[in-house]
C-alpha cells in the first residue's frame, strides 16, 4: 500500500499525471472510487480484494478526460478493459499510466500501451469459477427452464441502467434505449421490455465484453446479467476464435466474417 501511495504521489508531483483514479476508504471503511489531483491526497489510496470496481469506465467521463494525463489504479480485469478500449480507439486523447499489484504483491507501473498489452497477456484472467458453474448449470437446463429462470430474474429489473453505466464498453453518448423515434426498447420496466433491453445489450457487447463481471455484481436487483455476455464471449471464442481485451490490434467478431463460417440452422 505504502509503495502504491508513494508512487502515486511521485507521479502527481512530477507532472506525469494530472489526475489519479484509484480507491480510498469512505467513512464506513468501504473501498470506493476516488479521484486525486494532488500528491498530498495520495496517502488515502488503498488497493485490496475489496477494490472491485472497474475504474476504466471513468475514462469516458468528460471531467476525467479534461485532465488528459491520467493515472489508473487497476486490477487485471480493469487493465484488460483498457486494452479493449485502446483497440477500439476510444482513448486516443489520453496519456495513461497504470498502477497495479501483481500476484506476488509487488507494485507494477505500466507506462505505455505496449507494456499494458504485455502485462495483460502475461496475466490473462480466466472465467471466475462461480460464473463458470452458473453457465454450466444454465446450459444444462432445458429451454423452458432457462426461460423460467430469466423470466424470474428479469422481472426484478427496474431499468436503472446501472449495468450499462458501470460498463466500460457501453460508451455511446446516446444509447439506443434513449432513442424514441422509433422507440426500439420499451423504457418501462415491464418484463418483456427487460428481456428486450438485456438481449440488445448482450448483443452489443458480444465479442467486446471483457468479463469484469461488474454489471452483475452491482445490479441492485441481484440479476446475474454478466452471465449473458460471458456466455456470448465463450460462444464467439469457440466459433470464431480471438479473445476480447487481448491485444491492441483488437478484432471484433461481429464486424468481420470468414466466407467459411459454418452453421447448422440456415435452411
Amino acid at each position: 500500500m505504502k509503495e502504491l501511495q508513494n508512487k502515486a504521489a511521485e507521479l502527481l508531483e512530477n507532472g506525469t499525471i494530472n489526475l489519479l483514479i484509484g480507491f480510498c476508504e469512505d467513512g464506513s471503511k468501504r473501498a470506493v472510487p476516488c479521484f486525486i489531483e494532488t500528491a498530498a491526497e495520495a496517502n488515502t489510496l488503498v488497493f485490496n480484494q475489496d477494490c472491485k470496481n472497474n475504474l476504466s469506465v471513468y475514462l469516458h467521463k468528460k471531467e476525467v478526460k479534461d485532465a488528459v494525463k491520467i493515472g489508473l489504479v487497476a486490477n487485471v480485469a480493469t487493465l484488460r478493459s483498457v486494452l479493449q478500449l485502446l483497440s477500439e480507439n476510444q482513448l486516443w486523447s489520453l496519456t495513461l499510466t497504470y498502477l497495479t499489484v501483481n500476484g506476488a504483491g509487488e507494485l507494477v507501473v505500466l507506462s505505455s500501451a505496449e507494456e499494458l498489452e504485455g502485462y495483460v497477456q502475461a496475466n490473462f484472467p480466466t472465467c471466475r469459477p462461480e460464473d463458470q458453474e452458473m453457465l454450466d448449470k444454465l446450459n444444462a437446463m432445458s429451454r423452458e427452464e432457462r426461460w423460467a429462470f430469466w423470466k424470474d430474474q428479469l422481472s426484478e429489473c427496474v431499468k436503472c441502467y446501472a449495468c450499462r453505466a458501470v460498463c466500460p464498453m457501453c460508451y455511446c453518448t446516446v444509447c439506443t434505449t434513449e432513442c424514441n423515434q422509433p422507440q426500439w426498447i420499451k423504457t418501462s420496466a415491464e418484463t418483456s421490455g427487460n428481456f428486450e433491453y438485456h438481449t440488445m445489450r448482450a448483443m452489443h457487447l458480444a465479442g467486446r465484453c471483457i468479463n469484469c463481471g461488474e454489471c452483475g455484481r452491482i445490479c441492485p436487483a441481484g440479476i446475474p446479467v454478466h452471465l449473458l455476455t460471458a456466455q456470448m464471449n465463450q460462444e464467439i471464442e469457440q466459433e470464431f476464435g480471438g479473445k476480447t481485451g487481448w491485444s491492441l490490434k483488437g478484432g471484433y467478431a461481429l464486424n468481420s466474417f470468414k466466407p467459411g463460417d459454418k452453421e447448422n440452422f440456415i435452411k
Partner: protein
Amino acid sequence: MAETFEPKIVAFVCNWCTYAGADLAGTSRTKYATNVRIIRFPCTGRIDFMLLIKAFQNGADGIIVSGCHPNDCHYTSGNFHARRRWMVFKSLLDFMGFPTDRITFSWVSAAEGKKWADLVNETTESVRALGPFTDYKNLDFTQFNQIDHEGIAEQSR
C-alpha cells in the same frame, strides 16, 4: 368446430434474392400459406436483431429471415455479416430460453420460388403446432396488483 389458430409470421427478406424469389412464387401462381407478412430489406446485412425482437413485441408468433446464398450477395458480403450476427443472436436467444424454433433462417435465391413457398408453408405449420406466442405477452403479469392481464392481453391482440 373450434377456430384453427392462424399464426402471424413476419418475414425479413432481402430485396435481390428472397423477395424476388417470393415474386417468382407469385407469378408462377404457386399457392402457399397467407400467414406471412413480408418486410423487404436491401440486404440481410441490414437486418438488425432488434427488428426481430420488435416483431415479437408486436405480436408475431413466428419469424422468417431469409437472404441470398453465401457468395451471391448483391452487395458482396452483406449476408456473411448477417450469418455471423444470426449465429450469435440465435445462441443468445437460446441461452435466454427464447423459443428459437419460432425463427426460421434460410437462403432463398431469386430462382427459388418453390423453395420460398415451401419455406412459408413449413414455417406456418410448425408455428401453428407451437401455438400462439403467449409466453411473451404473459411476461408482463403485474405482481403487485394481480390484475388479469391475460384477459386484457387477449382482448387487445
